[in-house]
């Protein structure tokens, strides 16, 4: 083609030829404050690099040649935390009151409480399962504790935590003192028995049925431990980590998309 050639412009008109990004800038003060803190949450957790590596690689893919470079990534073990005194906030007061209430009935604090964790503003007592009803009764009745309200129980399944696979977590609320505390008990998957708290907190009735339904934790002493969400004749306990999701690969334009638990994932 003949004719005068148009000289291409240096860039889009609105950049003014300077080439600088035109994104709206956040208020400088905010960013400066965040940078000055130096511990933006996503960059926290250097300490975890000292923990043992539990898994290498990415996407849940194993045994294939690594062409991505992601095979070098390491996933570190999350170490169990144990807090030491002082726990801070009202936590020391609660621990003291619970200790003296237990001692009044001849139970040592360390007998009834395996571990105390004060983390992120929440207090957790790890209780051996045989002591659970006594500890809960003390939490409810002692005037210095008065945790009148139980928010029910929630199960968690840790298949890697050998001998302590099934956890039952109770959240207690004291309206009198406006405090919260959490109790956590564990049971091995081979012997999934935990004493029922229905006698202490009747509200646990349905919550324990739900936890039995989903996790298979048997609450000894529960008046009618039957399934509540799943059909009565259902097999297995669906919220366990090893429960097969039963998904079937979906074919789309000739490719198979696997069920959720077999898909590539990041965590």
């Amino acid at each position: 083609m003949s004719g005068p050639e148009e000289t291409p412009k240096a860039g889009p008109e609105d950049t003014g030829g300077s080439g600088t990004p035109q994104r709206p800038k956040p208020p400088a003060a905010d960013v400066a404050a965040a940078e000055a803190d130096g511990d933006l949450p996503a960059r926290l957790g250097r300490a975890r690099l000292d923990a043992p590596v539990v898994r290498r690689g990415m996407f849940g893919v194993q045994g294939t040649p690594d062409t991505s470079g992601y095979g070098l990534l390491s996933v570190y073990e999350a170490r169990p935390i144990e807090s030491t005194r002082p726990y801070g906030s009202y936590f020391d007061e609660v621990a003291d009151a619970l200790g003296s209430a237990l001692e009044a009935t001849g139970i040592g604090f360390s007998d009834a409480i395996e571990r105390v964790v004060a983390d992120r503003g929440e207090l957790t007592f790890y209780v051996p399962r045989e002591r659970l009803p006594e500890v809960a009764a003390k939490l409810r009745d002692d005037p210095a504790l008065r945790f009148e309200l139980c928010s029910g129980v929630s199960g968690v399944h840790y298949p890697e935590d050998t001998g302590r696979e099934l956890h039952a977590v109770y959240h207690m609320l004291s309206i009198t003192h406006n405090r919260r505390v959490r109790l956590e008990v564990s049971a091995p998957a081979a012997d999934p028995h935990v004493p029922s708290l229905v006698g202490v907190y009747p509200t646990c009735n349905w919550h324990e049925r739900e936890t039995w339904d989903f996790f298979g934790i048997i609450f000894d002493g529960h008046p009618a431990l039957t399934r509540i969400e799943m059909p009565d004749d259902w097999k297995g306990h669906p919220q366990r980590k090893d429960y097969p999701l039963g998904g079937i690969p979906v074919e789309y334009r000739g490719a198979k998309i696997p069920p959720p638990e077999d898909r590539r994932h990041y965590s």
Partner: protein
Amino acid sequence: MTSSTPHAAAGASDAEAAEGRVYTVSGEDWDEIVAAANEAGDFESGERIVVNMGPQHPSTHGVLRLVLTLEGETVVEVRPAIGYLHTGIEKNMEYRTWTQGVTFCTRADYLMPIFNETAYCLAVERLLGIEDRIPERARIIRVLMLELNRITSHLGGIAPMGLELGATTIYTQGARLRERGLDLLELITGLRMNHAFIRPGGVAQDLPLGGLEALRAFLDTTPKLVHDLRTLIDANPVFIGRNSGIAYLDLPSCMALGVTGPMLRATGLPWDLRKSQPYCGYETYDFDVPVAHTCDAYGRYLVRMGEVDQSLRIIRQCVDRLASRGPADSVMIRDAKIGWPAQLSLGPDGLGPSSEHIAHIMGQSMEALIHHFKLITEGFRVPAGQAYAAIESPRGELGAHVVSDGGTRPYRVHLRDPSFTHLQSVAAMCEGGFVADLIPAIASIDPVMGGVDR
């Protein structure tokens, strides 16, 4: 329809089904049943009748099944059966990123989606340790949305309360009023329910253009409509006759059964997490906690109506604060590793990344593109641990127990739903009463099966 030969009900063994006489009720045939029972001498011999109410019954608030044992018209035993709406929301969340989790938990109790999202996000933010870094504008918008949702939820409980007693005017007036709140929720989030609007780190987007004006118009007209509704219901002799003294549950029973919210406040205890354990900045708002002292269904209605008025008060304060702050603030945390999706805007083809953001990642910065891709596909990691965040939902304490193993997906999420807990109290409230009183009793709990079954 009656049948003289017993026939097996689904799930019951032959022996169980053969025990006693079985009548199959198919609707509008009560006379036939009574006649057949009379003929068989069931009433004279003091036989009890077991009635399956639900799961498909218009006044059980969704798929709730009540197994009633009746002696004449007296309820001897009532056992609620649930699980018909179990959809595995908690399990599903374990296979999505932390941000995608919002999309699932919002569907749990579908009359209070904003509350489900907020409880979950507050727990995630506590795990991340960013509770103090949520921008003020996002916190105000959260409170605004929570209170708007509280109004629609309460009206969604009160209106059917009338309908179930046969008062269709209460329903139509209440539903029309509720629709005004839903219109606002739709204007702000794009959806009438299942909003997925509250996200870890802030909210999905700022108020749209004209949002504040629409809120002001709502605040100008709604108080009068609420007042009109109250003049229709408050002193209505039929409504009082059906609700007053019904479904009695006093303070010790509430404590034992874990009952919170309007049911607890109807016993006279002003326990409201917004006051006692404030979140989202509730301590800076001026509002009262309405209580009643009757422990009955009518008291619960009064508490709910009082809370609608208080919510309007809070919304007014939110609007004033938003208007005085101007639109320059961000509504998402200023941490690019978490704030997703930080640059949403409403375009002609719907909600999506803003054109500036697209221009930046596609034309200017390779690193920004990589970062965008990583954040969308992988998400962010949350330090290992557990948190329990509880908020005051329209029905009571809604708690989210969230466990992280340090990965990009929740290890476990449990929603402590108030409807689930409160349904346990049906037996305590209704046994020994009339079967007709069961209807206002259930309505006064205001259970939503989406939250009960999750």
